[in-house]
């Protein structure tokens, strides 16, 4: 189990809390010490909207340890409305086919257990097709 590791990442994982650079106004996710756009010191908290589009996607058949019971599952590169791209699973697809460019929205889901049935539950962002209505 990696308790402190998952604990310290909870803000960005649960709700896509990133940063905005005070020097160049660039939006940053995940949070970093140095702005990848201008090299300035990044530190201002910025909550992302969770809206984005699929940049690319794939269906994972051979899962790594900890993900076996989920396979097959879809992982995508999601381009967020604010600019950054994140890697995340797509969920709640039902029979819906995934397409590049498809609009998606962030939801907070169970990513996996850390330490089996006795271990801690790790929650974090995934994305699903938009279509329910306003959020």
């Amino acid at each position, binding site marked *: 189990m990696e308790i402190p590791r998952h604990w310290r990442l909870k803000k960005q994982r649960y*709700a896509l809390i990133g940063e905005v650079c005070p020097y160049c106004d660039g939006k940053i996710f995940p949070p970093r010490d140095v702005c990848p756009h201008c090299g300035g010191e990044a530190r201002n908290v910025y909550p992302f909207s969770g809206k984005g589009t699929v940049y690319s996607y794939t269906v994972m058949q051979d899962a790594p340890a900890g993900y076996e019971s989920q396979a097959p599952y879809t992982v995508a590169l999601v381009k967020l409305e604010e600019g950054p791209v994140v890697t995340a699973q797509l*969920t709640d697809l039902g029979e819906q086919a995934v397409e590049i460019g498809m609009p998606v929205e962030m*939801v*907070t889901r169970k990513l996996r257990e850390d330490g089996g049935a006795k271990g801690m*539950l790790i*929650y974090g962002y995934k994305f699903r097709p938009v279509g329910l209505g*306003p*959020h």
Partner: protein
Amino acid sequence: MGNENMHLLKTDRPVGVIGYGAYVPRYRLPAEETARVWAAKGGLPVKEKAVPGLDEDVITMSIEASRNALARAGIDPCELRAVWIGSESHPYAVKPSGTVVAEAIGASRHISAADFQFACKAGTEAIVSAMGMVGSGMGRYALAIGMDTAQGRPGDQLEYTAGAGGAAYILGPGEEALAVIEAAYSYVSDTPDFWRRQYQKYPEHGQRFTGEPAYFKHIDEAGRYILEASGLSAADFRYAVFHQPNAKFPQKAGKDLGFSDEQIKPGLLVPVIGNTYAGAAIIGLTAVLDIAQPGDRVLVVSFGSGAGSDAFILRVTDLIDERRAKAPSTQAYIARRTQIDYATYARYRGKLDLG
């Protein structure tokens, strides 16, 4: 009236619902499919039930319902002073669901977070507590959630109905409310109709004993008292919502209190999502608020085994019109539907032994 309303739960200042949000997972298991697997004959208690996906539990479902409630309330999550979650399927036996949900929705650290447990009325219990917090002036806003991923033993009658879903309510000052809570009342007794012991996966129940002495007795007592104490009768209400373990019980309980099918139907979701336990009565209320008009009065009576009922009278205000469109409707969640077979259900609900 005299002393007849002395048992109502009265707040020091008016309290109401500022925002509400529902959540129903996307998968559906038809009752026919369960009947097929167990070669069961006879009538089915519901059409189908909602089943959570592999990555869902009471915490994730509460997060989404709460985000919907916040969107309707239009408040900063940091203004919440409590995050209280009622459920009988909290993911952890020890460790609060409330702190995870509070963190995820952006609540501040200066709050009370707690998990409630009272079988199917844990959600309304959280609402009563939130009324107390807001109504006493301890805090301006409090979030109360009732959510479950209910478990029924494979082959048990409960398996047809044990569904997943629930609702979140933000309570606040009456003057900001989309529905003011005009009265509240709780009624309990020691009635062992249904339970789940520590470390047990599935609940036990008293079959027909869960009816008359449990469900009907408590709903009737609570419903009758709050109506009489408020000087109201069924005719004063546009809608009524009762705890709904199946389709029959709430319709009978409603009739006994003088309510018609028209008053009950809009909040009767159990036929299409199953019994969402701690979420059942209050997700029914979300469907009613989605269509209610200013001035409409709504009666809500929950029931939790063990046993007890919480009853509320709500009066919808003018603010409903601008707020309800700010989050997905409960019917939109119900319409988002992927049917699964029993084998997929068994996989999604962890009923397969993976060794």
